[in-house]
């Protein structure tokens, strides 16, 4: 009798442990081997999925506009094609993305998939699957623009598959500019210089049409647009380049914008939300990027807005960016995750995603997507992207480097604005970090 009770306890404990393991994993259901025979494309798994065990996967996600709704509709479609697959779209704040992923990975509980940016890949690529192991890597790379390599490659590893590319640019309050009688550039031939831009901005503010001149999202990725346009860069073949005269000109010019009250300092100094401020109609210009088009198109009703060309310095430039989707190792459902990712980033699905979210596609075969609205604005952003300086590509090409440089810029720019650090001191400090990185990673002899 006693033995039976003990056996029951052991059985109960065993079942509980199995249940806990299934619940705690990044996904539940069949092991990858069951689908080992499946081909790498989504269609191939569709053929095998009817007999397959149920698989539940988490996709970590954040949104700038309507991406959640669009991705959910694609997931619904995929789940209908693959009845054994369930994908849980878990929306989190972008600021929490890396922390959440890092903690999950460290705790052995990686999610099956996650949306990510280039910095996520440079930091966590070791924990991500290599798509080369699942699909024809060379053929996959052929499908994407060469300029977006940095978005998804970590050395030879294909760590993710891109979903969209972004370009930095200038969004302006059309109603305010018209009220102030200030015309914005309408083509490549009449682009403002940065001095002309400052005068135009001052005129709009002085007219009383708006309270503030401009907002710049952050002192790192978005500010880098100004840096490149002044002919500067974060680094070059010789090492850190922020102390160069060109880079210092960009820093000093930006500081003047804040010192003269044209740029809103609370964005950089105390984390006020630039999007809300622009949407209030009290700001003339927002230096942001393509990802804001859908958001502003949907949420701004009280005034007209548009996109104009960024002013020109010694050159023109934008800063490319983008997003991708990755799958993680050790989840037990890597194959299923890869299958979904290759399906959702395939031409047809990606075209739908980019069209509905108003994004630029990174796929070569989706270069001519027609957008239902704001095609004029997209043409300007596309032009900015096409004029991106090679200096930007150099900075972005070093895996993990922009995380270091951007974090340093975010830490130190507020100190420059507050007068605790001179532009030269900030530049020297970041250059030292750049040199250390480049030395450690073999970029310097």
């Amino acid at each position: 009798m006693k033995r039976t009770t003990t056996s029951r306890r052991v059985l109960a404990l065993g079942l509980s442990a199995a249940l806990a393991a299934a619940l705690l994993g990044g996904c539940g259901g069949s092991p990858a081997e069951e689908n080992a025979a499946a081909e790498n494309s989504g269609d191939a798994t569709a053929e095998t999925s009817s007999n397959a065990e149920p698989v539940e996967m988490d996709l970590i996600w954040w949104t700038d506009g309507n991406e959640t709704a669009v991705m959910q509709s694609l997931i619904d479609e995929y789940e209908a094609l693959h009845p054994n697959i369930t994908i849980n779209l878990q929306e989190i704040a972008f600021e929490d993305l890396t922390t959440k992923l890092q903690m999950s990975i460290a705790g052995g509980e990686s999610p099956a998939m996650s949306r990510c940016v280039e910095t996520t890949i440079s930091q966590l690529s070791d924990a991500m699957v290599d798509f080369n192991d699942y699909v024809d890597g060379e053929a996959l790379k052929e499908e994407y623009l060469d300029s977006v390599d940095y978005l998804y490659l970590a050395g030879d590893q294909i760590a993710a598959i891109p979903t969209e590319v972004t370009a930095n640019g200038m969004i302006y309050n059309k109603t305010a500019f018209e009220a102030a009688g200030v015309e914005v550039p309408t083509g490549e031939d009449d682009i403002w210089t940065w001095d002309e831009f400052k005068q135009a901005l001052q005129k709009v503010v002085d007219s009383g049409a708006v309270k503030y001149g401009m907002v710049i999202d952050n002192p790192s990725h978005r500010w880098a647009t100004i840096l490149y346009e002044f002919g500067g860069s974060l680094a070059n073949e010789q090492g850190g380049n922020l102390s160069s005269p060109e880079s210092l000109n960009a820093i000093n010019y930006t500081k003047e914008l804040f010192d003269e009250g044209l740029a809103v300092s609370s964005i950089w100094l105390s984390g006020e939300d630039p999007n809300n401020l622009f949407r209030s109609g009290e700001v003339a210009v927002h230096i942001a990027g393509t990802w804001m088009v859908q958001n502003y198109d949907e949420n701004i009703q009280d005034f007209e807005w548009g996109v104009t060309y960024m002013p020109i310095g010694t050159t023109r430039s934008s800063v490319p960016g983008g997003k991708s989707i990755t799958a993680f190792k050790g989840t037990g459902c890597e194959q299923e995750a890869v299958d979904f990712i290759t399906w959702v980033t395939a031409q047809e699905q990606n075209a739908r995603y980019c069209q509905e979210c108003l994004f630029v596609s990174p796929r070569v075969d989706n270069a001519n997507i027609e957008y239902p609205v704001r095609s004029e604005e997209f043409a300007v952003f596309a032009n900015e992207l096409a004029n991106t300086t090679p200096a930007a590509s150099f900075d972005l090409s070093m895996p993990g480097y922009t995380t270091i440089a951007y974090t340093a810029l975010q830490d130190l720019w507020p100190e420059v604005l507050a007068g605790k650090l001179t532009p030269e001191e900030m530049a020297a400090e970041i250059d030292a970090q750049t040199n250390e990185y480049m030395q450690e990673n073999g970029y310097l002899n």
Partner: protein
Amino acid sequence: MKKAKRSSIASTEMKIFPYVMIAPNLLIFLIFIAVPAVFGLVYSLTDWGGIGELNFIGFANYAELFTDRRFWISMRQTFLYAIISLPLIMVVSLLLATLLVKSIHGRGFFRAVFYWPSMISYIVVGLLFQFIFGDSTGIINYLLSTMGLPEVTWFTNSITAMAVVVLATVWSRTGFYMVTFISGLQSIDDTYYEAAEVDGASPMRKFFSITLPLLKPTMFLVMILSFIDLFKQYGLVITMTNGGPAGATKFAVQYIYEEAFQKFRLGYASALSMVTMLILAILTLLQFKLNNGGAIDD
């Protein structure tokens, strides 16, 4: 004989019983505090970045932190914040407790009103104060501008930013300590006041000669709890000022968080945590010593 045996069992049970009662708490302490602390100590001796193998580097992280100017600035700002906020919290909550321990009309309502903010998370309090004091989007500056008055740069001036953070802290924590003080006040025997009444003592004299001395254990408790709470401040500032302007309200915990999760230096951040914990432990012990463990003076 049987009685003696029963008494012996009872005595054994009485010895074990307290340990059984504290066992759940001890278990929670071990799992969530002690074990992670040991892990933290191990990580602090490595250059671990969050994933991958542990690479032991000895005391290099500790050597680095002693020359990390920004960490010590954040520590200085933490002290400044705690030193300003602590007396304010204690004075305001004691004042409210003294008023609301009396039989006045609407006592329950006022107690609830003052206690309510302590139930709101620091994150929400931060957002609320950002909404009120925000430089460009805040209600106060909006009202000032509609009246033609100059706006105040609440969060881009280091002094006003710290002042608003202190104000938000006092507002959100006072209610909790008010309840603690009310409990302490209610435990003071009325006969002391009656005797003082007979001797003709003024209300002020009664407060300083009876209330305060007999409230010393409660005050000590409030001081220790509040100090630890303030020293670990993070949620409030991250949503209100994001540590700005230029680090004026960036406290030690935010600095550690950024090292760990923005720069991916978990080993170094663990060393910073260890040092912060040590400083906090020393200060708490010091307070314990100076206050004689909160014992009432003879």
